[in-house]
């Protein structure tokens, strides 16, 4: 019995990690139809922001939950202004430009901080599930994922900013005719998505370790999760991370971590063959 609970807990934490690391990308893609291939580097920057401010003596929770999203949000604002804004409506070009940005950021951070693994150990210690111990920080990640899901949902569903954002997403010209400046909405959306990526990077840092190239191991998984999810960003990302996260964690238990990942990616390819518009292209169509 205990082993089922322990495995179930691992599966949940795998799903939560996938969801957390995909959400920022999903929001930018869902709202703006922009694929930000520098997403992984935004995670990395968030992790660095957290670790550096924690080393400077800031409370670790403050560093992770406040400083990281703020710093990366501001970086996102700058990137939107300098690069993304010039490329609206040219999806492939944005992918290429953000890929270039991703390489440049890896290079720049390597030059500044060196190619070494920095890390901070998971706060909170561990707790027992029957005869097994589990990391309490993983439990915190699961709650963080739930909190982020509902937080974004509430903002989009119940606030006037969320209403404007959804309206612009559905029909930018109509929103402009009603007095909303779409460029400003896009800028805020991109900054918000970046801030969520920064938060995600800080949250996963205790488990993943912080290196300049840490983003590359998340970007493809996040990308495939968002694409598999389809048009509805929250429902899509949630259902896709649920499915893919579960496959990957079970695969990891059955074989090795690498094959868990391979199985997850293979499932995603098969899914896209069956549902070319992603999960929410067929199910939960009216969800957010």
């Amino acid at each position, binding site marked *: 019995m205990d082993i089922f609970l322990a495995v179930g807990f691992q599966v949940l934490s795998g799903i939560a990690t996938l969801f957390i690391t995909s959400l920022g990308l999903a929001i930018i893609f869902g709202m703006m139809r922009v694929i930000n291939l520098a997403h992984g580097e935004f995670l990395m920057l968030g992790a660095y922001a957290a670790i550096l401010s924690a080393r400077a003596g800031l409370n670790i929770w403050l560093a992770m939950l406040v400083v990281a999203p703020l710093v990366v949000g501001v970086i996102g604002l700058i990137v939107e202004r300098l690069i993304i804004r010039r490329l609206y409506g040219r999806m492939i070009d944005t992918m290429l430009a953000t*890929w270039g940005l991703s390489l440049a950021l890896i290079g720049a951070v390597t030059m500044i901080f060196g190619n070494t693994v920095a890390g901070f150990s998971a706060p909170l210690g561990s707790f027992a599930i029957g005869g097994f111990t589990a990391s309490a920080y993983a439990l915190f990640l699961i709650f963080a994922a739930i909190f982020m899901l509902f937080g974004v949902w509430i903002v989009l569903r119940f606030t006037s900013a969320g209403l404007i954002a959804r309206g612009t997403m559905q029909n930018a010209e109509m929103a402009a005719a009603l007095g909303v400046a779409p460029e400003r909405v896009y800028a805020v959306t991109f900054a918000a998505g970046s801030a969520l990526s920064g938060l995600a990077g800080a949250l996963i840092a205790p488990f993943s370790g912080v290196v300049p190239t840490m983003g590359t191991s998340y970007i493809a998984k996040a990308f495939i999760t968002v694409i598999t999810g389809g048009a509805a960003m929250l429902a899509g990302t949630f259902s896709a991370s649920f499915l893919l996260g579960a496959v990957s964690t079970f695969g990891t238990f059955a074989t090795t971590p690498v094959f868990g990942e391979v199985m997850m990616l293979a499932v995603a390819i098969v899914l896209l063959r069956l549902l070319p518009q992603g999960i929410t292209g067929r199910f939960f169509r009216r969800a957010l």
Partner: protein
Amino acid sequence: MRSAFEIIAAIIVALAAMFMLPRILELFALINATVYVSMAVLALSLALVWGFGGILCFGQAAFFGLGGYAYAVAAINFADTTLAVPVALAVPALVAAALGYVMFFGRISDVYMGAITLTLTLILFNFVNSTAGDQWRIGAAPLGGFNGIPATPPLNFPGDPGNPLPPETIFLVAVFALLLCYILAKLTLRSRFGRICVAIRENERRAELLGYDVRFYKLGIFTLGAAMAGLAGMLFANCVFVSPTMFSLFYSGQIIIWVMVGGLGTLIGPVIGAILLNLLTTWAGTLPDINPSLILGVVLVLAVLMVPKGVLPSLTGGLGRLRPGSGAR
């Protein structure tokens, strides 16, 4: 006419390179030059698939790596490289055919295609990285995991395994292969098949309404590009050795940068782009404080923002657009 002229010019340049470079360069530089030539073949393969087939493949590195690994494994098992070369072309082509079937017959749109090709690269990268240890071997060839296969044998004279080619000759073979690929690509684009591929790139719906089975043509040019990338991998394996980095995102990204900077919708542009950018990164690698990734990334961002048509076509003042038959944008 123009096309014939370009082919003749390419033959002259290739012959000059084959004659001059082995005399000028030292052995180390010559081996480096061979690596650049293999990269040029790789760039040419994506130039064909993306620039003329309109298929943005983020995973050209997957076919490059597959070609290299197929060559190494086959050469070790046969103890002769004569048959390993066709294997290096066939394996990526078959994988591309299977993957292309999933993508084109599933009518998946651009972004999703990018995601799937990227995913394939990642799967292979992770898989090959995890094949350390004795249980992972194909016949006599251990896959070697993270370390790759350092014992990748160099090409030998066809049918004479005891007689491996010296690096100078491998350079000649590489230049010759690049020339062949260029001519093959030119002729393909002149053919009925190539013209239809360009028509599909320009307007898929229209080509379909004219009665062409778009899926079939896309599959064709995708598979051809994969075989060419496999050849590039084989050449690369001859000068270095095969290792999982061949599948890495860094390579996938680089190929796209070469084509983008060299000029999408041209053939010679990406070849020149690959060679020049490789020289640039090698030079940047010797600078003490500059990371080559930073330079590559900045080059790509600037290329997309300022010269979306590619540097070379912009420099030649839009000459590419006037070329009949090349179908340049």
